[in-house]
């Protein structure tokens, strides 16, 4: 991590000013001292985590979190393409928006995780319990990240969980209703809750270590 300490602030500044060119040149230069997977899982991951936390503290806006994630995802695609064998070896993971077409939250988490070296399938929006149960079983998904906007959808995750009682999939939730009620994720039986992209990244890292 120490090897990135001189560039982490520069990269953060480039992202927050949406200077794609500058951000890319910082990352490309870093490849002379580190491997692409290290850059993704340490440098990028750390910067995006910092930006996510700053949003949580009210110091940054969601648009900045989104743009930073998208820029990083594009840069990482170049140095670490999806087919690269150096990408993280991990259980099958997917992300979806439950019963809704408000996709921004999902997109932010998707970008953050991919830019940090994870591979995950984007299932899109407007999915119901029935859709998800079918996909999870067919694709043997082990980690499902679920974004919701509306309270009734959040409450229906309980129903989804019960339909998946014979599966070992872990469901990690996020979205507005959970942000306004800290106990809601437990009430609906989720296996974890990330209130922002930095927490989502932290939870996925813990899942990879088998501690969630």
């Amino acid at each position, binding site marked *: 991590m120490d090897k990135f300490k001189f560039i982490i602030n520069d990269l953060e500044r480039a992202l927050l000013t*949406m200077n794609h060119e500058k951000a890319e040149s910082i990352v490309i230069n870093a490849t002379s001292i580190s491997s692409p997977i290290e850059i993704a899982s340490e440098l990028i991951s750390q910067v995006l985590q910092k930006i996510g936390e700053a949003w949580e503290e*009210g110091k*940054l*806006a*969601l*648009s*900045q979190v*989104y*743009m930073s994630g998208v820029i990083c995802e594009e840069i990482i695609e170049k140095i670490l393409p999806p087919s690269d064998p150096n990408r993280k070896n991990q259980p099958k993971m997917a992300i979806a928006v439950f019963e*809704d*077409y*408000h*996709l*921004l939250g999902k*997109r932010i988490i998707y970008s953050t995780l991919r830019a940090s070296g994870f591979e995950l399938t984007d299932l899109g929006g*407007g999915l119901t319990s029935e859709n998800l149960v079918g996909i999870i079983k067919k694709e043997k998904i082990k980690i499902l990240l679920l974004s919701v*906007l*509306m*309270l*009734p*959808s959040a*409450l229906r995750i309980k129903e989804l969980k019960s339909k998946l009682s014979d599966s070992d999939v872990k469901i990690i939730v996020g979205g*507005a*209703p959970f942000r*306004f*009620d800290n106990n*809601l994720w437990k009430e609906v039986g989720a296996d974890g809750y990330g209130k922002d992209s930095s927490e989502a990244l932290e939870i996925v890292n813990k899942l990879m270590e088998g501690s969630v």
Partner: protein
Amino acid sequence: MTSMERVLTTLSHKEPDRVPLFLLATMHGAKELGMSIKDYFAKGENVAEGQLRINSKYHTDCLYPFFYAPLETEAFGGDVIFTDDGPPNSGIPLIKDIEKINCLQAPKVKDTKVLHKVLKSIQLLKEKAKGETPIIGVVMSPFSLPVLQLGFEKYLDIIHFRKDMFNHLMQVNQEFCIDWANAQLEAGATAICYFDPVSSSTIIPRELYLETGLQIAKQTIAQIKGPTATHFASGNCLPISDLVSQTGTAVVGVSSNEDIGVIKNAFKDKLTVLGNLNGVEMRRWTREETHRIVRDIIQKAAPSGGFILSDNHGEIPFQVPDEVLLTISETVQTFGVYPITKKQQ
């Protein structure tokens, strides 16, 4: 005092007889009428009757014939998805190809049938309210509507990288928003709630708000022929409090994520603060919790007027039990009487 007098007094930053209560229960009227949410919102008559019953049951100080957030995209031709237990939601965004934005035209209120049910409900409420209770009409700000029209990601890309497209979209949405707000005022609305969540500091930084949402709000509000209340629908606004005061709005709807005492100070003598009960948590509040939370907010924000108690989103979830709403109302009647007395520790 009548509700109207109570609200006007607090808007002039003076203390009325008690704290005004805006219980923005948009869907509970369906329950009162024994209807599904879809049937309830199908007719203006239902919503008018629902609002009158809510008003009489919970002693609220406004009538709020707000139907649902995607109504305006429905006017543009978008889909609405109805469920039995929550607010109607928008379907897949109406504009799939952003290049088509340049051909987008504003629907005329007089020719758009889906909007007429709202006007009908306002007309009916006006007859019943007899000027004693404010009727709050609702518009989505031209700056926030694109989230439903084309989706958040595409919209953020346009804001940042396609100024020409952004400007055209704002022009179309402003034309519609002004027409829609003024039609509601003409039908009998007392004021217009200008929902503008994208302008909140939760969503965009202050610098971007200065260039975009603030300018749109100033231009739009200036052409709405009645008072407005700006609502950030659970989004934060403290970092832009000095700017919101310049938009010409009279009221600001604030988030439960920000301290109501700090917010009150930031807007003191400039704007009336509306908020900030947490609607999502409210679903499982006990009677004691409800008392404590309502009293705490009143103590911090009500002294010297300029305050209306409400939820933080502008729409109370359908799952909030009637008992909680009754307890909120009862607490306001008891502890919201001016002068506000200090709570015993």
